[in-house]
């Protein structure tokens, strides 16, 4: 276990180094510097601008600039947004809002996928209609752009039926407190969480269904029946436990989606999360924020990947004992 983890950790450090280089290259190719606008002004001495650039280290050789930048990042200094806040604060606030959407959606979609997957697999041999419907549903779902689905829901529930709020996290210009505030936020969450749940269910559902169909044909299900168990009971007690290994695999693969899965949904519902922040920063050409988002997201995704590796090793003794044969 330790040997496996040490090996994974080493690989993650290498990847993190690669990520930092990628982000740095991205940052260097963003147009403009903080003082270029001054050069347009005839009253400003070009030598002064040069001196300022020197002070900021923008005239250093590129590898020196990279090391300095890395040093600042390691100290948690990601720079400042155009409006003056530290970008790290902006991003961590947005990340909290994103998690408010993605965690419920993640849990709900996992639950639906497991239940529907088992149900659909069980009916694949008998009642084919249900299985066909589930298969059609998953295909439809991967083929519909998230934002198109979101727009249709906004039109129906927001404007035609006037049932649910369609944008933002809370009602503007009204200051609820306590329970009413929670209810207000919850009401705003319904549509985006619904869209997210729907878009995240299908992948896992398909996986679950095929894993379950494999299990239904295993000998131990027949053995359990031979010893007097009903088919249904054999599946729920023996089959499900074996299916859980593949559930954990997919669960782990989807973990990074908690962070990055809601980008588009957020933009359409104007939810003040990472996706919206990213889009608005692009519109305002606020490069410091964009770079911070990219870097933080990459780091968080890397961390969730590591977590997935650990969960995987805990669940599957072959990896834990084999010392990382997965590589």
């Amino acid at each position, binding site marked *: 276990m330790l040997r496996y983890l040490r090996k994974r950790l080493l*690989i993650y450090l*290498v*990847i993190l180094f*690669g*990520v930092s280089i*990628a982000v740095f290259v*991205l940052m260097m*190719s*963003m*147009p403009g510097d903080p003082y270029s606008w001054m050069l347009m002004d005839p009253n400003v001495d070009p030598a002064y601008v040069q001196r300022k650039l020197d002070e900021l280290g923008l005239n250093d050789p590129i590898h020196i600039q990279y090391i300095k930048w890395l040093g600042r990042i390691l100290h948690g200094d990601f720079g400042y947004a155009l409006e003056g806040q530290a970008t790290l604060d902006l991003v961590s606030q947005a990340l909290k809002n994103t998690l408010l959407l993605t965690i419920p959606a993640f849990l709900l979609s996992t639950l639906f996928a497991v239940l529907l997957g088992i149900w659909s697999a069980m009916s694949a041999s008998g009642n084919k209609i249900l299985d066909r419907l589930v298969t059609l549903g998953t*295909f*439809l779902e*991967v*083929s*519909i*752009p*998230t*934002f*198109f689905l979101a*727009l*249709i829901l*906004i*039109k129906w529930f927001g*404007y035609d039926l006037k049932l649910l709020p369609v944008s933002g996290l809370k009602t503007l210009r009204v200051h609820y407190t306590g329970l009413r505030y929670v209810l207000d936020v919850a009401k705003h969450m319904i549509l985006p969480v619904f869209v997210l749940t729907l878009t995240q269910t299908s992948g896992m559902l398909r996986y679950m269904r095929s894993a379950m169909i494999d299990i239904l044909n295993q000998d131990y299900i027949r053995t359990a029946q031979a010893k007097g168990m009903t088919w249904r009971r054999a599946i729920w007690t023996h089959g499900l436990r074996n299916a859980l290994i593949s559930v954990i695999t997919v669960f782990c693969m989807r973990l*990074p989606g908690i*962070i*990055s899965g809601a*980008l*588009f949904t957020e*933009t359409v519902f104007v939810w003040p999360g990472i*996706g919206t922040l*990213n*889009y608005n920063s*692009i519109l305002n*050409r606020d*490069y410091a924020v*964009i770079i911070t*988002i*990219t870097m933080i*997201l*990459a780091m968080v*995704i*890397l961390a969730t*990947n590591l977590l997935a590796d650990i969960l995987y090793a805990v669940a599957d003794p072959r990896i834990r004992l084999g010392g990382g044969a997965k590589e």
Partner: protein
Amino acid sequence: MSKFWERLRAFHGRGKLEGEYVSVANLSWRKFCRNRLAVFSLIVLVLIAVISFLAPLITPYSYSEIDLTLARQPPSPEHILGTDEYGRDMLTRLIYGGRVSMTMALAAMLLQLVIGVVLGCLAGYFGSWVDAFIMRLTDVFMCFPFYIMAVCLAAIVEPGLKNLVLIIGFLSWTGICRIVRAEILSLKENDYILAARSLGIRPGAIIRRHILPNILSPILVAATLSIAGGIMSEASMSFLNLGVRTPESSWGNMLSAAQSMQALVSEWWRWVPPGLMIVIVVLSINYVGEGLRNALDPRISN
């Protein structure tokens, strides 16, 4: 004459001729033809592609000419799908948009195919540090969510048709690369590869002659599915005005009309048709891909 029909039936997977030799490709085609849904999807796709590419012959209107007197008209016999805010015929823009969206998706697919197959072959065949380097490179790429990185790059380079293709291709090759690598890893232990190596055939030739033909089917399936991905990416980016710009039309940038509340609530013809087209085309591609996967898998026979 009846012989001819019998052959045609056999070619499309209905029955088999007496003592007939069937090649692998032919066999796969027959298996594919037995999947009605996949065949129907393929026909739909071909139909949409033909209509899109014959666009100038089909519609009398121009996709870019502005006539404000005709703005925002609901569907009518002259304009079957109404007009947009500049008075351009929506059906015309839909057809031309299909041309742009599908060409872009194809181009992006080719680009990611080239990058993915080349890197995947290098990693899988040569192993050791080449493999380690390329795999870490894909890991780095996979650390960035596609949409965040694509938006970032679109902010650096000018948005537009060509750059969007480059961005999509540049960011989505990792999947194909991993598939190719995994296939080669399991393939290269075979005796015929060893034989070719011991005959002194150069690695390039071994990969081209002996390896690539054997892993063609997973590549084909992945390429098909990546066209669907390309259409989705194009639509998403253009929806945010970071892709195809007006007056050029694409399904994505037509959908961005729905960002205005008036169009969203009361002018359905300005955003529902392009959305439906995306759903239909992507769904069909997915069904064709699934059909291909089953047809090319020798373990599945029916």
